[in-house]
């Protein structure tokens, strides 16, 4: 079976809100589509894996973010090259913030990011917590946000989606997440992939096409996802 190599960034440090679920769903759906997932864990101090078709990274406490920051600056050039070569990446919350220019904490401390996204994040006293619904090019996306960092996109940075319910990037401009090339960032947990299979399959398509130059879809029974999405639509913020 054709392999797809997944790099999971800092699985021990950034895994707060069911981020393991994204990896699980990605792997299962790759399998159901006819590809064999191979996972590489990237821990602080490791060098980047040789074969990488997909990158995922989760969220964590602000303190954990400082721990991995030194490492991500070291592999930042490598990640940027992968991004430029079309490798899809899914970055959630903490990893999303580190893919921007910087994160300025509540206490004024500056945590530098790797600038794959043109955005920056500032800490705030207000925690944004609740069920979120956003509109994206992959249809409606449902998730759960839980963050105090407010992210502001640069002038030419495209968002991932428009907020229909909830706060999104900052609670002010109705944007949620970011997209540059095939790199996606978002605040949405839930985790995001199980409840949004269309989005997941689009990421898989990008990864497969990028590696093998062609992709054929297989029909997957998503009736349970549909039920969960109907629930999510009804739940209040």
């Amino acid at each position, binding site marked *: 079976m054709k392999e797809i190599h997944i790099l999971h960034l800092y699985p021990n440090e950034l*895994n707060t*809100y*069911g*981020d*393991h*679920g994204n990896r*699980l*769903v990605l792997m*299962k759906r790759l399998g159901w589509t006819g590809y064999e997932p191979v996972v590489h864990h990237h821990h602080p101090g490791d060098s980047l894996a040789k074969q990488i078709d997909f990158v995922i990274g989760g969220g964590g406490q602000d303190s954990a973010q400082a721990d991995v920051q030194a490492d991500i600056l070291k592999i930042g050039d490598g990640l940027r090259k992968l991004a430029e070569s079309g490798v899809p990446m899914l970055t959630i919350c903490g990893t999303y913030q580190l893919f921007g220019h910087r994160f300025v904490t509540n206490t004024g401390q500056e945590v530098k990011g790797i600038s794959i996204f043109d955005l920056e994040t500032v800490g705030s006293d207000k925690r944004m*917590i*609740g*069920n979120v619904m956003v509109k994206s090019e992959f249809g409606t996306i449902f998730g*759960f946000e*839980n963050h105090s960092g407010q992210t502001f996109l640069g002038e030419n940075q495209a968002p991932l989606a428009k907020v229909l319910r909830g706060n999104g990037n900052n609670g002010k401009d109705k944007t949620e997440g970011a997209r540059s090339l095939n790199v996606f960032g978002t605040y949405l*947990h*839930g*985790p995001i992939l*199980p*409840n949004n299979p269309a989005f997941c399959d689009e990421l898989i398509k990008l990864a497969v096409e990028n590696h093998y130059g062609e992709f054929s879809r297989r029909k997957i029974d998503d009736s*349970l*996802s549909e*039920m*969960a999405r*109907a*629930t999510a639509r009804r*739940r209040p913020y």
Partner: protein
Amino acid sequence: MQDFLGTLIGKAVRLILSYRTGGGHALPGLVVEKLFPRYVSSMLSQIPGGVVIITGTNGKTTTTKIVSHLLNSNGLRVLTNPTGSNLTRGIASSLAQHANAFGRLKYDIAILEVDEATARRLVGLVAPRWVLALNVSRDQLDRYGEVDTIASYIGSALEAATEGVIVNANDPHLSERVKKVKKPVYYFGASPRLSKFFPSDYDLAAVDSSIEKATKSHKTDVELYRFNGQKVEYLVGGKKYAANLQLSGQHNFLNGAAALALCRRLLPPEKAQGLVAELSRVSLAFGRGEKYRLKNGAEVELVLVKNPASFTQALLSYGGAGAHLMIAINDNIADGRDVSWLWDVDFSPLNGHGVRLTSGKRAADMALRLRYDGIETQKIEPQLQPALHALSLGSGRKVILSTYTAMLQLYNYLNKNAEKIT
């Protein structure tokens, strides 16, 4: 004489029943009450510390357990009635069971947990020293209908207290009813800052907020001041006390306040000092595998799951071959509104077994989660009661793994419609 004969008959009926069904605690009381209509009042009059009634829609069982613990730890022998037997005949059964063969009860005080309608009837049989009223709330499974009717039942019980009453300061129904009480009224409640955690029936129904506003200013004898995780602070008689509670859930923190307020009236002042410290030693069996027998004879076990650790532990204990599982997931504040945590649970103990049902508000999310671990869910039924019914129709061992608020609903239903076995 009726104490002796009634007790003997009650014990005899229980003995006969125990051979046939292995339980059944209302029938002995029914027989005894038929033969000796004054059995309950006569027996209870033996107890030197008298009778205390705990009533309300939610939290009776927990509060009674806490009060019993606090009084026990102060050397009192406490007679209580088991959960689910709070009709007067259940109390009669309990009295017959706990008395010795001569019909004597060796207890210092009786703390009786009764629903609202039973409270009104019980005070016709025996005058309680104190009545503690926890709350009045609409309850979809309630058999009494109108919430005002329920409130009036509690009102009758409150008016019958010979020494005084303790009521929830934040409950507008109760504030109305204590106006007729001639004896001293003491309040327990939550700090106004915590009110969002404790919506009253008026808040839930969004009716007549003018009454509600008028009730917020009662001076509380015991106040749930604040909490953070299991660390809870109470204001008791104006003084602040902190404790690390084993009780979980903010509702139980408030039940703790109610229990403290009652025990302060039942114990001499010098003993009341250590109550908050003692409260930290109370643990409940809540969701630790209690077993109920439904009317169709099926037995179900209840297990609380609230985070990846407790869920994984529960799967290891109950997930193996043979057990039919129902998993009920709600996403209310007390459950945690984010259900992401389900993806951090290790479901491998269910490999090859499957799950009978998922239920609760997030039933579909739960089934979806299981699907990605290759575990089949036979049925998705978000409504708890139909799900419980479907589970009960199967054969073999039946276990419900449930989050906090789903379990509260299940308890509420089971305590009225099933018999508690363990």
